[in-house]
């Protein structure tokens, strides 16, 4: 199948699913209403309700998504920079690596759901900082692990090369390790971007009066599944868009990763 027909096929499949969902929902709900039970739409949303929510509350959902996005993006960027800094320190100081690496792993072993309240207590309810911090915590770890692995498992030939050229540790980092670890960013970004959104939303659940995480919790209490579903879809779309952007942009940034045909 070519690209076009593959896209068409998946769109068709999703449409069938959505229609199926709508039809079953309506049938069930009708039965419930006839027998005098509460309408299903207090607990679940049908595609038409979600669509309504998008139309009626679109502005709210959009602005709250932006709030979450800003927090997640800040968290992601700080997380990546932090990971680079820590990986850099690890490369230069084996002692620091021995001391800090287990600690880094240990911090990651804390369930973030349990750790987030700790952070929110420290940085305060409804503060930008506490939400960003949760997001940093969740996004920096995969980046650090990948960067550290690429620096410590340097190919033997590159070690030979730096011996031949008598490279200093810093030159080695600048000329060999740093450039070759940039593509790692592509891999970890795919993991870390959705993770940082999760982090931000978790922070918002627990300690914010803004953001998509907050909106989801509110719509749960207010029995508004339409807004809840619409919020989820909007966050998922944002996350997806970012991953697609990365897929598109990295061959331009790192042309040496492009799979060109060999010359002969």
């Amino acid at each position, binding site marked *: 199948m070519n690209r076009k027909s593959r896209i068409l096929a998946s769109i068709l499949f999703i449409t069938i699913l959505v229609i199926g969902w709508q039809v079953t929902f309506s049938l069930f709900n009708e039965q419930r209403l006839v027998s005098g039970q509460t309408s299903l739409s207090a607990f679940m949303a049908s595609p038409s309700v979600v669509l309504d929510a998008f139309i009626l509350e679109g502005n709210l959902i959009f602005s709250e998504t932006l709030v979450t996005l800003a927090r997640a993006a800040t968290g992601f960027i700080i997380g990546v920079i932090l990971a680079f800094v820590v990986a850099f320190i690890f490369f230069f100081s084996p002692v620091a690596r021995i001391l800090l690496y287990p600690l880094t792993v240990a911090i990651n072993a804390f369930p973030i759901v349990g750790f987030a309240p700790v952070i929110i207590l420290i940085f305060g309810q409804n503060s930008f900082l506490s939400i960003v911090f949760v997001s940093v915590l969740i996004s920096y770890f995969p980046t650090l692990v990948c960067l550290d692995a690429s620096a410590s498992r340097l190919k033997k*030939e*590159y070690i*030979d*090369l730096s*011996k*031949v*050229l*008598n*490279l200093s540790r810093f*030159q080695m980092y600048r*000329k*060999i390790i740093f*450039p*070759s670890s*940039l593509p790692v960013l592509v891999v970890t970004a795919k993991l870390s971007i959705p993770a940082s959104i999760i982090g931000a939303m978790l922070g918002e659940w627990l300690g914010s009066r803004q953001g998509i995480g907050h909106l989801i919790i509110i719509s749960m209490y207010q029995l508004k599944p339409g807004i809840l579903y619409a919020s989820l879809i909007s966050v998922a779309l944002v996350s997806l868009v970012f991953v697609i952007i990365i897929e598109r942009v990295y061959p331009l940034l*790192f*042309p*040496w990763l492009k799979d*060109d045909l*060999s*010359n*002969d």
Partner: protein
Amino acid sequence: MESSSNRSPELLEVQDLCFTYPHSGGNKGVQDISFKISRGEIVSFVGPSGCGKTTLLRLLAGFLFPREGEISYKGLPIKDFLKARKIGYTNQIPCLLPHRTVEENIMLPLEIHPSFQKRNIKEKCTNILTAFNILQYKNYYPHQLSGGTSQKVSLATAVVYEPELLFLDEPFSSIDEFTRERLDQDLVEVSRMSEYTTFLVTHSLEEAAFVSDRIFILSGSPATIVGEMKIKFSCSRNLALKQRVEFFETVNSLKKIIERNEQKK
């Protein structure tokens, strides 16, 4: 460099070199190796695989440190010399940085070498690309090159800053016969032209005979020198040489020395 005025016949002297890898029980490594090399010589080490040829080369290049014995260069311990970044080294696997183009890869040693001025780098690079006949690949990334071309680039990177000593560890072993013959010829030409003192580890006796002025036959392990052969041909080293009787005779006598040593064991 002052080296051209100071033409001592013995450039590099190795004396009673011993080396063992830790935890190997003294089996691997090299033992009691002594020889003298003069400037501009192309020297090959041949021997059965696993005998310690690479270890010897890595000792000479200063990647490993001998347990006993001494390597001196122009009468001084080689350690001081190695700090001056005046060696070239090529591995079996071409060592090119994937994120740099061919040209940028060749530029790398020049960027780091303190004696090169920025404006000369580009020119120098173009010269070497032309010398190796790879100018058309200058904007390619390593993954876009064939095995032979990458090895050429790797060799160009090793010689671009005119090293005084060139170490080649089975540089062409993974390349097809036809390309290898051409690369061997390139190697001889480049080494002769620039008077590099070259050390080549190879398992191909033909390659050793074609390229070298002198061949050391090693037996392992630990590696010891069991034979030495000076190579002199009546014609220049080109592909026609490989069809001549004297070439076959040289290769055969090399083979005999190795076989005799294998039987002794």
